């Protein structure tokens, strides 16, 4: 695109971001402050993820962008278009074909490989923020690995409701050291992060933090021995592809209580339907 550098950001800015990424990879789960720039998309729309993607994107990369698991949600469309314009890279909706996947709120159902990088958009990188609003305080808690506050929160949930009620953005321990926000992915996706072959990068633009989970790193949802982490998922099969192990969107189809449940990962669902048609013919 005329007038702008490849992938929009100027090279010194990309270098600054890459340095933050390298540091983040070296200290899994640790939030690295970086000089986030104002982007031509608003804060909250994924400016952190966009800056990370811009910093790692090369001319040969194939980019996939999803929001809520889908490639055709408006913000995913908008970000994919942005990189088509400013980087001219090839884009895809197929998880298998992508080298870089930027995501908001989901991890693809199709297992990722070591040749892929997953870039998360992060609204609030601080997992302790809802319990302690001061970043100066939480910084110290991380330094001391003092996560008692979060354990107490989980304990109180169990005492009050019988189980932990955090259903998304479930706090995870990375490499046995840092408590980390996995971004607002459903708790269902949390286990996919553990020992994932792909590099996972997290960008928070407004909060100006980058963090990372290197390939094959241990990621454990925070829990208790006698109250282990359990998955929550709508107890249905996908109405389109019949999958019983995927995360489902609940779609309201009328005002008399009718619902249908379909895969949130549109590529996964389409893939399965394609296979079924292939089998039928």
């Amino acid at each position, binding site marked *: 695109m005329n007038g702008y550098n490849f992938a929009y950001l100027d090279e010194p800015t990309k270098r600054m971001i890459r340095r933050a990424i390298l540091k983040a990879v070296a200290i899994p789960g640790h939030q690295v402050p970086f000089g986030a720039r104002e982007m031509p998309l608003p804060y909250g729309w994924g400016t952190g993820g966009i800056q990370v993607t811009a910093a790692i994107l090369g001319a040969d990369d194939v980019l996939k962008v999803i929001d809520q698991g889908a490639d055709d949600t408006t913000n995913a469309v908008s970000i994919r278009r942005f990189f088509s314009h400013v980087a001219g890279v090839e884009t895809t909706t197929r998880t298998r074909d992508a080298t870089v996947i930027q995501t*908001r709120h989901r991890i693809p159902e199709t297992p990722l490989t070591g040749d892929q990088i997953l870039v998360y958009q992060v609204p609030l990188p601080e997992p302790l923020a809802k319990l302690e609003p001061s970043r100066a305080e939480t910084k110290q808690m991380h330094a001391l690995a003092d996560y008692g506050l979060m354990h107490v929160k989980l304990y109180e949930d169990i005492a009050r409701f019988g189980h932990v009620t955090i259903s998304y953005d479930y706090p995870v321990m990375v490499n046995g050291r840092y408590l980390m926000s996995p971004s607002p992915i459903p708790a269902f996706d949390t286990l996919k992060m553990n020992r994932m072959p792909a590099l996972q990068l997290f960008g928070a633009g407004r909060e100006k933090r980058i963090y990372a989970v290197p390939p094959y790193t241990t990621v454990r949802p925070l829990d208790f021995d006698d109250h282990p982490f359990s998955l929550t998922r709508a107890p249905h099969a996908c109405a389109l592809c019949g999958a019983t192990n995927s995360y489902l969107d609940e779609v309201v189809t009328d005002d008399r209580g009718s619902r249908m449940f379909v895969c949130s990962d549109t590529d996964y669902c389409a893939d399965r339907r394609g296979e079924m048609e292939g089998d039928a013919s």
Partner: protein
Amino acid sequence: MAYVAVKGGERAIDAAHDWLARTRRGETAVPEIKTDQIAEQLGRAVDRVMAEGSCYDRDLAALAIKQAQGDLIEAAFLLRAYRTTLPRFASSRPVETSAMLIHRRISAIYKDLPGGQVLGPTYDYTHRLLDFALAADADSAMVPAAVPSSTEADQSPPAVTPRVLDMLQAEGLMGAEPQSDAVPGDITREPMSFPAGRDIRLQALARGDEGFLLALGYSTQRGYGNSHPFVGELRMGDVSIEIEPPELGFAIDIGRITLTECEMVNQFGGSKTEPPQFTRGYGLCFGHGERKAMGMALVDRAMRAEELGEDADAPAQDIEFVLYHSDNIEATGFVEHLKLPHYVDFQSELETIRQIRRRAETKPDTGAGEPQ
């Protein structure tokens, strides 16, 4: 099928942009507004957009206002996003506001003082009666002609208008600010960290939201961190911007900008060993923005509570709270992002709440389970 209606984001975005463009233009029988008209006749809007957009360019700010249909936060955002792409070729020398070409200068603490009181173009003593003549096609003949000011008549505008607080400081009544040649921090390049120095605090306030600073400043007046302020001085006018290219070795003037500066005189600190002194709250912003500069000066002073040995328990005194929430581009982004789809998260909340309700219904007596 209803589900299909959720899809098709690409076409929806294109259609939305087209509709937006038509809405922005409005009724085509009405002549299109020109950016020079905005720059000339909506100057206060331009000033605010430049201040919160952190970029002094009247033409670009006017363009942003036109493009944003007069939504000033959206306009400031447009200007900021443009600003980020600009190369930085120099830092200016510190601006000397005592050498300001004064358009307005008032002090609330002295009746008269060197340099005088200059009322300038202020709404302060207007009666807020809608002027229906402006709604008619009033032409420029209605505008009163400029009369030469007394200084112009003297042909000897003072080169320097001393700052009121400097006079207090010379008398030892005003606490001196530490002088330093250190390069100030820059929150547009480095993320904020705490404790934040005053350079960082003032930079954040200078580009902070006028409404937020107004409300916080107001809260200090109503008892949430009172510091007994007086407007020592409020001045607005033009200052020269100078840079000193290393290859030249001397400063060159690269242009003039309009600034508003406010210095508040606040109640004194002091102890058995240190005689009491007044303390300063400082406000400075691009353009003519008195409300902004005054709010900023109140909040700057409030944030000095801890440094001055005062209790710091009011919102305006909480540095982290103020600095993290003063930026309206960040704030509007995060508030408005709630419009984006969240149905994956909401689905997981639905399943969780249904699960809790099922449990409560099947075990009505025991209620929630006890942790073992």
